[in-house]
């Protein structure tokens, strides 16, 4: 089943790193996305904040090297944030790229 997402945005909170009992690093951060899209024949503003999770290496190290204000491009897939909230979603990163600030 298809589950693929590419999104860019600005890092708005410092990254938070944990290590699982088995020693696998997990880095979480929040991304603020702002862009203009075409919808129903008109250009409109899109703005949203998303939680991104980077598990394992090298993704966790790449994520941790990011600073607040950095522009980031993520590809990955969506999954629920935790077992208690079926509808709360997070992006699991598969690639992390540094982007240029894009103009609205």
């Amino acid at each position, binding site marked *: 089943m298809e589950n693929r997402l590419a999104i860019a945005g600005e890092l708005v909170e410092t990254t938070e790193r944990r290590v*699982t*009992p*088995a*020693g*696998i690093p*997990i880095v979480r951060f929040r991304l603020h996305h702002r862009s203009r899209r075409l919808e129903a024949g008109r250009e409109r503003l899109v703005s949203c904040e998303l939680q991104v*999770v980077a*598990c*394992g290496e090298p993704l966790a190290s790449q994520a941790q090297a990011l600073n607040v204000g950095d522009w980031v491009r993520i590809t990955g897939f969506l*999954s*629920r944030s*935790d*077992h*208690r909230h079926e509808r709360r979603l997070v992006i699991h990163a598969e690639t992390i790229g540094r982007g240029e600030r894009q103009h609205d």
Partner: protein
Amino acid sequence: MTTTLRIAVPTPLRRAFDYLPPAASPLPAPGCRVRVPFGRRTEIGVVLDHAPSALAPERLRPVLELLDSEPLLPADLLALLDWVATYYHHPIGEVMATALPVALRRGDPARPQRIQRYRLVPGISPEQGRRAPRQAALIARLAAAGDAGLAAAELTALEGAGWQGAMQRLVAREWVVVEAESVLRAAPGGEMGLHLTAEQATAVAAVVASLGRFGAFLLEGITGGGKTEVYLQAVAAALAAGQQALVLVPEIGLTPQLVERFRRRFAVPMAVLHSGLADGERATAWLAARAGEVPLVLGTRSAIFTPLPRLGLIVVDEEHDASFKQQEGLRYSARDVAVVRAHRAGVPILLGSATPSLESLHNSATGRYHHLRLSQRPGAARPPTLGLIDLRRQPLDEGLSAPLKASVERHLASGGQVLLFLNRRGFSPVLLCHECGWIGRCSRCDAHFTYHAAERRLRCHHCGAERPLPTHCPACGSVDLRPLGLGTERIEEALARHFPGVEAVRIDRDATRRKGSMERLLARIQAGEARILIGTQMLAKGHHFPLVTLVGILEADRGLFSADFRASERMAQLILQVAGRAGRAERPGEVLIQTHHPDHPLLATLVTEGYPAFAQAALAERQAAALPPYAHVALLRAEATQAGEPLGFLESVARLLPPEPEVQLWGPVPAPMERRGGRYRAQLLLQSTQRPQLQRYLDRWLPLVEGHEAGRRVRWSLDVDPVDLF
């Protein structure tokens, strides 16, 4: 009719067996061991008595071999074991087997091990063996050893193997004498008794006045109140009267200090009986006690079955301890058997505890036991103060509340040691997948796996199953696995973060698995190098930590709402045992208990008014609910690999006798942890306010249970006076 021997053979069948006496030898007396044919095997049995048999002699088999020329089990012990078999409704053959040391059970000769000790005959010098270098070397060794001579083991250590040939020649030439001596040497002894407080003196005098006749004494003494000194002086009086004393303790490994005090006090041979002994050592000690050569026997549970021809006093230390009850096979309570033994032998018994069992307190209240109290600590030591920390609306940082953390800091700053108690080992009792909710569960038990960080494994604390720590969730593949809940390892890690640079040691079964590790950790504590101790109930017993000024009990609530009616009693006993570790020297101790239920009546009573008031309240609850000690219970447990079988079996045996008003049957119900080690478990509770009525019911009922055909598909056992209802 022919005279036959009634013999106890170790088998699950609840009866003795008739055999013909061996041809051409005298009738073995009761208490002698014999080898008998049993089915297609041979077994070691014990002669119970001689009786004319109703069976025709040609239908009986003869005894194969007589193992003892005189009774191994003296008459008084034989009678006690018969009582045990009757009261606990356990097969007499298995009772005998439980009472005998392993070596004697399997038929070894009843001869104590001896040490061969070699001494040089005066006037012999190495010169005389110059043409035989090996002999000359031995002569030189023995000459150096002087009058003490050398034991066989010492010679092997000095000379290596193979010295025996040369030694034999020296013995043959009468240059060396060899003597066999008992392995049980007299302890150093010599330490003087301490000056007694008025309360201690009263207690000692009461017990000593009862020497030579039965009397049961409950010694309720606060921790640090000097119970051991009362034991020592009562034992001294018995020994001075030429009697033997038996001292029962819960676990030898946890009470090295107590054993040491007895050794320092009494310069007599002392047998220390515990499960760590080699078979030969245990049999030797048992036989020496039987021969009356050992005046003092100190041991764990099964030491109650030691033959003691001159028994004069029994002491049971920590009489409330659950380890006195055997939880498998013959489910006897060594404390209760000890009281019966003292009664039959006509000697006093002294039951000591800081937190007596409700049963014993009830026996004191009804006048069966004399209640002796030690309410003051001798010397300058003051008892610790107890306080509760209300955990409601209080954030916990890895199990520690802010007030507890502040207290830890304060005590560390003023140079004290801190003991934190959490009765759960491992890192966390649960490993959870954050994404899908998967929890590591044992496939054989209704239980979660405990996560052990140091070994990176998941372990089941109920059946021992284990597996490596998964890197990914076995259900969804996520890596986000999280430990949930607190174990001692996790507290240890958190403490290192909270108090960097302060050495903490953890004492639990995992940290002390390797031989000598316990001693090493204890030494770091005693030396004051480690400032924080974190541990399970292993810390609660026996050890003295004079530098500890703060005890933190991280979780007190599990005992408050358990389905087992004894849980609150155990919780109170454990809290006070742990609390008793604090402030044993001149510094006053502080005990802080974290709880979500500071208003719980039992907990509040314990903290504000102490154990006696708690025990009163708990006894009132028991009386209102008609629970022990106000009722007598027996539990029939059944288990099987097939679900449903145990319950079905118990349901059908529950109807074997017509209902009786005096005996109530409750259940059957599945055990709270229904599946354990791959077996489904259920239980049926029998209860009566009258002990004899319950016993009579069991007498009539068990043969029917035994004959019931559904019993073949389950494993069942009866537990009289169970300590764990579940």
